[in-house]
């Protein structure tokens, strides 16, 4: 089904550009077959997300949120249909090109934080900039500014093991946004956090979305995040069953 939003349309007042959508999918399918059993994880999903949107993919467990998010991030290849990120058809990209696209245009925030345990908080946050060959001074400046903003100043040299869950997730958010990607994909980012920490993290991401114009797409069933989203795409059994905007 289609969400009725076409690329190029104005979606919210905070959307940065009206040109190329941040995300577009067309008739997207993901089918798994195991021992003769066919599971349609994502079914015929077509949607468009404009730059600057703060979107939640909502739905019960097994509704296909994470699979859809993984396909948007190029982590899983679709069985059928197409995904365009910032105008690029990623279904046609090679492994190497996909890796480059993830590095330059995407940011990821995972449920389990997934910081690299051998790097410090600062090194984790600047990791994608390092891969992009950004000069050291520029890297440090960007990360330090961001750390100040997310309340992580003074904790730069700590390894993930020495940070609380909330602090680790802040670093993960910093890592995702520091390179100013076209899109940040976050899979259940608040699932492992307590209420207060979750709220603070949601505030932080909303702030970054507002101030930096970073596009966020979440897969979650956290009601607090659903309340803060300006657009909620509801999934059931792999299909989109609703697309609510709250401008």
């Amino acid at each position, binding site marked *: 089904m289609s969400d009725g939003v076409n690329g190029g349309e104005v979606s919210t007042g905070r959307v940065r550009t009206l040109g190329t959508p941040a995300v577009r999918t067309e008739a997207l399918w993901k089918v798994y077959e195991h021992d003769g059993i066919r599971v349609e994880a994502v079914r015929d999903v077509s949607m468009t997300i404009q730059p600057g949107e703060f979107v939640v993919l909502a739905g019960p467990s097994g509704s296909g949120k994470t*699979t859809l998010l*993984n396909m948007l*991030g190029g*982590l*899983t290849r679709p069985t059928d249909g197409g995904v365009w990120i910032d105008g690029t058809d990623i279904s046609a990209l090679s*492994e*190497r090109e996909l*890796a*480059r696209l*993830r*590095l*330059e245009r995407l940011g*990821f925030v*995972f449920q*389990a934080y*997934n910081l*690299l*345990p*051998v*790097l410090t908080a600062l090194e984790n946050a600047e*990791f*994608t900039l*390092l*891969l992009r*060959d950004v000069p050291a001074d520029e890297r440090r400046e960007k990360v330090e500014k961001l750390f100040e903003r997310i309340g992580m100043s003074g904790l730069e040299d700590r390894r993930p093991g020495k940070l609380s869950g909330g602090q680790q997730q802040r670093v993960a958010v910093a*890592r995702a946004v520091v390179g100013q990607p076209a899109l940040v994909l976050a*899979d259940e980012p608040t699932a492992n956090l307590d209420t207060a920490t979750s709220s603070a993290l949601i505030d932080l991401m909303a702030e970054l979305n507002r101030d930096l114009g970073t596009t966020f797409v979440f897969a979650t069933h956290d009601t607090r995040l659903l309340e803060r989203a300006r657009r909620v795409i509801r999934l059931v059994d792999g299909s989109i069953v609703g697309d609510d905007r709250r401008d």
Partner: protein
Amino acid sequence: MSTRRRIRLRLALRNLRRQKRRSVLSGSAMVLAMALLVFSRAIAEGGHEDWIDAGVRMGGGHVSVQAPDYRTRRTLEYRLSPEVRAAVQDALRSDEISRRLVASAPRLIVQGLASSSQAALPAAIMAVDPELETHFSALQDKLMDGRWLEPDDRLHAYVGYRLANRLKLREGSRFVLTAQDANGDISGQMVRVAGTFRSGIPDMDEGFIQIPLATAQEWLGVPGAVTTEALLLRGSRDVGPVRRELGRALAGWSDEAEVLGWRESMPELDAAVRMDDWADYVFHLVLFVIAATAIVNTILMSVMYRTREFGVLRALGLERGEVGRVVFIEGMILTAISGLVGMALGAAIVWGFFRNGLDFSALWDMEMEAAGVVIDPVIVPRFRWNQIVQSLFFILAIGSLSSIYPAWRATRIDVAEAMKFEE
């Protein structure tokens, strides 16, 4: 170094440090294997060198000069004339040879018969210059009764103890040596037992006699001639250069003289040393497998354990091959460090505890013989540069081979699946 290379190296190094206990445990298997390798190589090298040394002292030296075909015919027809011997002596004075030379000894060897009033038995008769032979052969140290030959001796013989027993000879007994002379006639020479020896080599103890060179030359009608000019060198490594230099110097005498290395003049010893080498290779292969298994196991465990981490690296933009390279570098670093530590440990053990020799006399008979050589139960370990180079190559080979599979496994990780992986 490019940024990405630096990142891969940093991740690999830090991960090894992070998994300190695991790194140390698997590294210690490598350390042990390498230490054992260095130790066994040094012992094998020292043992071989001692073995070769004992063999060449009893036999024809590291390098020998003989008449062509003497090796197969063993008759006086094939002997070195005084002129050829003079050319050999000239060549020995060259710098290339003299700095490698320990001793040289002329020898006249014939097959003959030793007869006493009790029996007549076949014997190998080696005529030697007692003065020069003192620096060369170890046979005089194997004395049982009487004495060895002296420079002024004329009609004296140094006899294997079993041969002496069978001929019922004692110190001072007279007996007759019979052999074919230079004219092909059978000729006899009466000699007196100066002493008897026990070499530990049955063939020698049962059928070997030494007499003075001058006596044999006169008896067999070959004044100034010998069958072999034997050269004892500092070690078996010197054989090649000396052989080449001597070959060049004697190029004008090629019809009358050929230069042989110990491997050619003593093929049984050569075969035995080679066989022993193979046994060493098999032992080293076992060490290789032990070390490689430890490394593969560690790195593979680490890859399994870090599935999610590799998934994250891929999600963040590292390519498949780069993730594999991180794992490969880890394996190489672990192998290189533990390999070098193992080499140093092995060398320290050898040098610290066994530099004066490792005594195996409790394990084997004092007269253990192999390939016609009595092996000294005290083996002095030896290091060679090629050993170190080979060991380094060995380390790198273990490192690369045992890291390839885990690295490949790391490249095959499905990113989306990896995110579900519970650490």
